[in-house]
């Protein structure tokens, strides 16, 4: 009997022992798995934090190039100009079937003329607005001075062409506005004066003015001021300058702002006013240096104040 009992006890002890061994083995396995899981979670969390940090970081690397006022003027100018071109240039090619489709789209020549007159008002408005802006506003005045042509622009042209021809390695350092942008600006100045001036002469000679939403406006005094001869000269200049301006916009401005491999399909600076640090360093090095210098001075001043 006792023998029997002894055997029973032995078995139970052995069971207890092996069970403990197996449980501890499974426990350590599960522990490892949980550990790995936690490690993985921590890693993804860290990656997410790094990612958001990476996303936030470049925001600080942008510079504001154009303020809202500057961008607003550009948008009004480009809308008016495109509409004026679409309703005006077809008149130079009346036999071209594409031009005929465009005019038909505007509702025939009379309606196209009204639309042309409406956007002419837009152009006149932005011309006057810009004049006031560039004398009244602090930003406007600053930019106007920056846009005045200087001797440096001529040497810049020379040096840039040297680079193009492989005769010079060192990059040309441009200020806030390069000679390309200055050319664009003054070309628009010349264009506005020509187009608005000659366009006004033609309206006055007509004695009538019909921008689409304002109905017909009588300018009876017009024919007293303008003769048919002056009108003919104005018309010739208006037509010739229009073609020149259109070709420059399409061939020059579109290339510099949209079509060149550096900017394609479009530089967004005209929409959000921002330029990246990389671009500003490359295209407006002097402007960049100036900004950084000012920032350092400001920081130094702030530290001085704090002390």
């Amino acid at each position, binding site marked *: 009997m006792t023998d029997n009992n002894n055997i029973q006890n032995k078995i139970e002890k052995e069971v207890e022992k092996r069970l403990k061994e197996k449980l501890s083995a499974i426990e350590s396995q599960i522990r490892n798995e949980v550990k790995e899981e936690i490690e993985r979670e921590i890693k993804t969390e860290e990656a997410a934090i790094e990612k958001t940090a990476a996303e936030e970081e470049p925001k600080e690397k942008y510079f504001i190039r154009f303020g809202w006022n500057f961008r607003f003027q550009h948008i009004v100018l480009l809308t008016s100009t495109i509409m004026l071109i679409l309703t005006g240039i077809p008149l130079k090619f*009346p036999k071209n079937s594409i031009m005929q489709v465009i005019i038909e789209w505007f509702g025939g020549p*009379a309606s196209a003329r009204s639309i042309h007159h409406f956007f002419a008002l837009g152009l006149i408005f932005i011309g006057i607005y810009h004049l006031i802006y560039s004398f009244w506003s602090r930003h406007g005045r600053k930019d106007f001075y920056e846009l005045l042509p200087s001797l440096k622009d001529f040497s810049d042209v020379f040096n840039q062409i040297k680079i193009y021809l492989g005769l010079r390695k060192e990059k040309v350092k441009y200020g806030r506005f390069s000679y390309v942008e200055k050319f664009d600006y003054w070309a628009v100045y010349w264009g506005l004066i020509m187009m608005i001036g000659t366009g006004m002469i033609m309206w006055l000679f007509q004695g*009538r003015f019909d921008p689409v939403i304002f109905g017909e406006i009588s300018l009876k005094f017009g024919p007293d001021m303008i003769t048919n001869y002056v009108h003919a000269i104005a018309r010739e200049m208006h037509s010739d300058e229009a073609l*020149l301006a259109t070709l420059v916009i399409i061939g*020059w401005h579109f290339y510099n702002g949209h079509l060149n491999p550096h900017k394609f399909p479009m530089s967004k600076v005209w929409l959000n006013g921002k330029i990246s640090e990389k671009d500003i360093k490359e295209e407006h090095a002097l402007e960049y240096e100036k900004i950084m210098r000012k920032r350092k001075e400001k920081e130094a001043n702030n530290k001085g104040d704090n002390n």
Partner: protein
Amino acid sequence: MARVLNIKQFVIFIILFIICFLFTVSDSLPQVQNQKCMICHGKPDISKKREDGSVKMLFVNDSMLLHSAHSKITCYDCHNDIVEITALGHKKNINKVQCTRCHYDNNPVGAPETEKYREFQESVHQQELNNGNPKAPVCQTCHGSHDILHAKTLSSLELKKKITQTCGQCHLDIYTTYKSSVHGKAIFDKNITDVPVCTDCHGEHTIKKTDDPESSVFKTTVYSTCGSCHASEKIVEKYGIKADKFKTYESSYHGIAVQFGEKTAANCASCHGIHDIRPQNDPASLIHPDNIVKTCGKCHPDANANYAKGRIHINPHSEESGSIYYISSTFKWLTIITLTLLAIHVILDLVRKLKHKRAK
């Protein structure tokens, strides 16, 4: 044995044969067939009274008929509803002659058939006929009936003069206006055949209403009808008129608007007149310096004396245009030079940027 004719018998036979032959042939000759009709219609005073009281002359000039284009056909060929002729004449109310009885495609009698007969079906005159206008013309109204002639039989001067008179039968007021216009005077007084008559502008069988867009004198297309002569140096420069008037109109605002289909824009006739076109030095001319303000004023109510100061048809590419020529050529060179310089810059920049991109 066969009976052989002797010489005497043979000659008699031949003579009889020839006489018989002549009778048959002569009977089929139109003038012989027409003789019966000419018994009455050869009398110069033959006429009838219409229901409305007007008198219609029924005389047919036999010799005129013989010289006409229809010299080889008989009365019955056209007046086919007359079958019976008695001593009292023929039936009353005979039908109007239908030219299309012979003049249709592949007709067996060889009557000429061209597009013109079909073109007429679309014309304003046919439309008026369809609307029941009793004054609307049929073939005979313009071409004549018994005196119908080939156009070729007349010299072009005679023909052109005759056309104005033919149209003038109905359009009398226009005929008189035309006669005193620069075109009318040139053909009637100076015998110049380059001058347009009615059909040169309006078309012949194709003639359409002036407000039909297919008309050759429609508001937006009449300029090209005028241009068919006035754009040709060969035609107008003989008479001291510049052929560039057409091109300068095409490039003027009026001309451009017209080409885009604007009906209210001025065409040639708006300023120069239609049938009453006169030279600029004629005081009655619409473009005489004294009348210009009034002429422009038709469309531009604010027109004043300033509208007459300066020429209208200016060709910016001709040195005679003075300041406009110099402005135009200055801009031409300004455009060429500017765009060339800018294009060079664009190409240099593009080449460098592409190289730069490839190096990366």
